[in-house]
């Protein structure tokens, strides 16, 4: 993830605000209540996914500093445990409540898992030894319970490659790299379309990466905004894809791919850098952008307009919302911010007028 800020327009923007030319928000702007999802006793929590029932997945810190995958259901935070090691991270939750992510086993290795509240965590690598190396993670799940993720092919850094797997009907399938030397998938919709990125180098930042949409057996290159890196992060059931793409000058901008076109979502006023993380079936997009204050702010993008979510919550809430990670079809948004000096997961619920 790469974020930058350009402040050339900051002064102009401030002058416009003073003159009343730029109003804080349109009169019909949606506003939200904000909920702190809490922790397991430690200072930190983070949320990454919300299903259409309002259930949330993420991780929270314990008193002794361990990160534990959680599911947030009906106002309560539940610890999903691990595969025997210290830490676990939940990245997606399906409408049926299945939760996926990665967790440490007793050896400290990261393993892709799937679980459900009050169920036991299942190590997907137990079905296929190829996932039993140093690292595997599950990143996408659809309404059919199909799980996608990727795994490292070797422990040794120089010999390792990222390859995509599909876990479906109790079977693990190696889907390869989709054309690059390594491949990563991030989301799968109910039609089985997948998005992700592949690259010629998996070893570091700044390497060329190509975002793809895998649909009907074809790998579609989503293009770029001028630079050499595009990453797809989510797609909806309409096949619309979001992510971020490098501009010609090396900055990243949130983008939407729809009907064969990659569109720059832009940045918040005064910012230079944005990333889109989630899109719902209505085409509403959430993400993060830097801003005139040189700090990250969570945004929601709809109707061609990007709004700073910090302007849509009660003033004096004590929150700085830094990134929005997913939005469900009901418009609820989860993400992460700073509350009372601590990193906390939030849930935004639209206020019905």
């Amino acid at each position, binding site marked *: 993830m790469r974020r930058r800020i350009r402040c050339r327009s900051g002064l102009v923007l401030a002058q416009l605000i003073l003159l009343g030319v730029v109003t804080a928000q349109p009169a019909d702007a949606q506003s939200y209540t904000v909920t702190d999802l809490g922790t397991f006793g430690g200072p930190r929590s983070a949320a990454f996914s919300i299903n259409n029932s309002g259930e949330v997945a993420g991780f929270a810190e314990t008193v002794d*500093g361990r990160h534990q995958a959680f599911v947030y259901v009906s106002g309560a935070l539940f610890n999903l445990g691990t595969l025997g090691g210290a830490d676990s991270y939940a990245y997606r939750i399906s409408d049926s409540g299945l939760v996926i992510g990665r967790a440490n086993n007793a050896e400290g290795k990261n393993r892709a898992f799937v679980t459900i509240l009050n169920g036991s965590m299942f190590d997907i690598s137990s079905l296929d030894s190829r996932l039993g190396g140093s690292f595997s*993670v599950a990143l996408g799940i659809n309404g059919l319970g199909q799980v996608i993720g990727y795994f490292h092919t070797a422990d040794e850094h120089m010999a390792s490659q990222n390859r995509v797997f599909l876990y479906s009907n109790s079977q693990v399938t190696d889907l390869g790299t989709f054309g690059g030397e390594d491949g990563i998938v991030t989301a799968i919709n109910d039609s089985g379309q997948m998005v992700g990125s592949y690259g010629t180098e998996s070893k570091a930042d700044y390497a060329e990466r190509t975002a793809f949409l895998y649909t009907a057996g074809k790998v579609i290159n989503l293009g770029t905004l001028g630079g050499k890196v595009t990453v797809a992060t989510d797609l909806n059931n309409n096949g619309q894809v979001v992510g971020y793409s490098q501009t010609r000058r090396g900055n990243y901008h949130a983008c939407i791919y729809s009907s064969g076109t990659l569109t720059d979502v832009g940045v918040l006023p005064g910012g230079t850098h944005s990333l889109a993380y989630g899109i719902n079936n209505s085409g509403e997009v959430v993400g*993060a952008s830097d801003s005139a204050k040189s700090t990250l702010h969570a945004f929601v993008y709809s109707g061609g307009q990007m709004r700073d979510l910090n302007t849509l919550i009660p003033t004096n809430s004590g929150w700085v919302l830094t990134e929005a990670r997913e939005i469900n079809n009901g418009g609820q948004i989860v993400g992460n911010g700073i509350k009372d000096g601590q990193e906390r997961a939030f849930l935004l619920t639209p206020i019905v007028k």
Partner: protein
Amino acid sequence: MSPQKLYRCRGLWPRVVMCWSFLIAGTSVSAQDPSIVGQWSAVQTLPIVAVHAHLLPTGKVLIYPYTDDPHLWDPATGTITSAALAGFNIFCTGHAFLADGRLFVAGGHIANNVGEAKAAIYDPFTNSWTRLPNMNAGRWYPSNTTLPNGDVLVVSGDQDTTVGVNTLPQVWQTATNSWRNLTNAQLGLNLYPAMHLAPNGKVFMSIPSEITRYLDTSGSGLWTTVAIRQYGFRSYGSSAMYDDGKILVAGGGDPPTNTAEVIDLNVASPSWRFVGSMSSPRRQFDLTLLPDGNVLATGGSSGSGFDNSTAPVFVAEIWNPATEQWTTVAGNTKYHGYHSNALLLPDGRVLTTGGDDQPNAEIFSPPYLFKGARPTISSAPAAVGYGQTFFVQTPNAASITKVTWIRLPSVTHAFDMNQRINRLNFSQASGGLNVTAPASANLCPPGHYMIFILDGNGVPSVAKIIQITAVAVTPPAAPSGLAATAISTSQINLSWVDNANNETGFKIERCLGSACTNFSQIAQPAAGVVNYSDTGLASSTSYTYRVRSYNSGGDSSYSNTATATTSAAGPAPPSAPINLTVTTMSATRIDLKWTDTSNNEAGFRIERSPDGNTFTEIATVGENATAYSNTGLTCNTFYHYRVRSFNTAGNSAFSNNAKKKTSQCR
């Protein structure tokens, strides 16, 4: 230097251009002169790829590869030994030296783009690791910056491929062994951003983004934009602070650029401007500060793509801050690209090592090592304080024109995270230089630095490693076992046991008598000295001594006292007689005469020899005598004579020799 090393022209067209320009830069003869182009060592094979490299205060280089497999390389011997394991994969960590010389590392490698939340400290003096409390989250490719108070800023680093980069800057607080979160400064940064402590105490980010900023680490943190760089995104370019508040960035991008830019953070409105371009585009290369203040560029690729090993840049280049231009120098033989690094050694050479599939090292000797004899530093204090003037002992004081020090390097991924040079004020003094340390920790964060003294030709000494610390320096341990031994009527020799390893030197005090207390200092020998000869003393006199060590933290307590008495003075031997003459008086008699030059003789001893070689004393005569008659001799025979005076203190030297033959026999 072989021509093959200089003119390695394989590869794509940028290489051809580079080689062409190099040939133009100098004739083939002068270009091979190491005093102009420097010289590369042979390739040394290493047991690992050195992805991370750190010059420790011990003088050894800690390197580690893609795994938790650190090694220690000794520049003096070339030997490599395994170092203690960290206990987690320290590949892809950020690192910075602490004020006490220990190495602070943060983050690490779980998988590509998946970082460890761990942090640890490596102690080079005990070869051991200490785990610290975890950071807020994982960091893969973070940057560490030592702050003026010795704390360490950690920024960036990927948490994992879902969460992305760790947006929260954190400060490691050494005093409390805890983290401070800069919650007001959350920002998505590039991995391994180049951060520099600026003269105003803020931390300046120079590359890869063209938007360059300050991070104020006080309170909950605050980013402010400083200036937009001229060139765009410099991915895997390099950056170096080449003078207080002055930063050079060069290369980087894809395809890489050969351009370079500078900014001066000391002015009211800093802005970037282009300076001379390198002879070749580069990415995945290193900028290394040299003792003379120039900046060396080594390694990297001129080709497009992330790590294009088909277009290696072998020639090195040196940037001169005065001219702001580059000069191409000698080339090496191995491609040091992604995962390579370069660092200055205390002897003034530059170690270049690492790069994927490159378990080797090459060492560059810059041209200044071929421009004449090197000045030497006999001694320097182990530690100094801010603004302190300290003594650097050197026999070359009169020829020194520049004194610099450079922070111990800690390098990875084309960037030394805390590289800086300070040009130190100094003055000539008897037997050395009085050098003044920087007054501000903003210009010189606490820790260890290599101090170089340079002559008018720009030839640097081998460095001594000095610690600068804001914390009061502890006075050294007191010496013990002082012994005093009279050697003569005028000399007493002293010896003692040095119990400290941080003394600047010793102070010797003396008083007259065996039970005296009115000591005064008589000498101040350097660190490590354990004996002293006190000369010019009075005879038959008792002297009492004591000694203590000292450093910038003050004086130690005194050693034991020791007393000795010089020898008693006696009469001196008389001076030698001169002008000895002999006269044949008969067949059996020869008379001798000489000049008496002494006034304290007891008499004279007359010696005779048949051959001028073997003399036998034949008589003594009394005080003030100047003649003697030798009778009873054999006729027609040669006799040799010499004379010396004597008294109770001994004999004088001999007079000249003289010979005569007795008369013919009858």
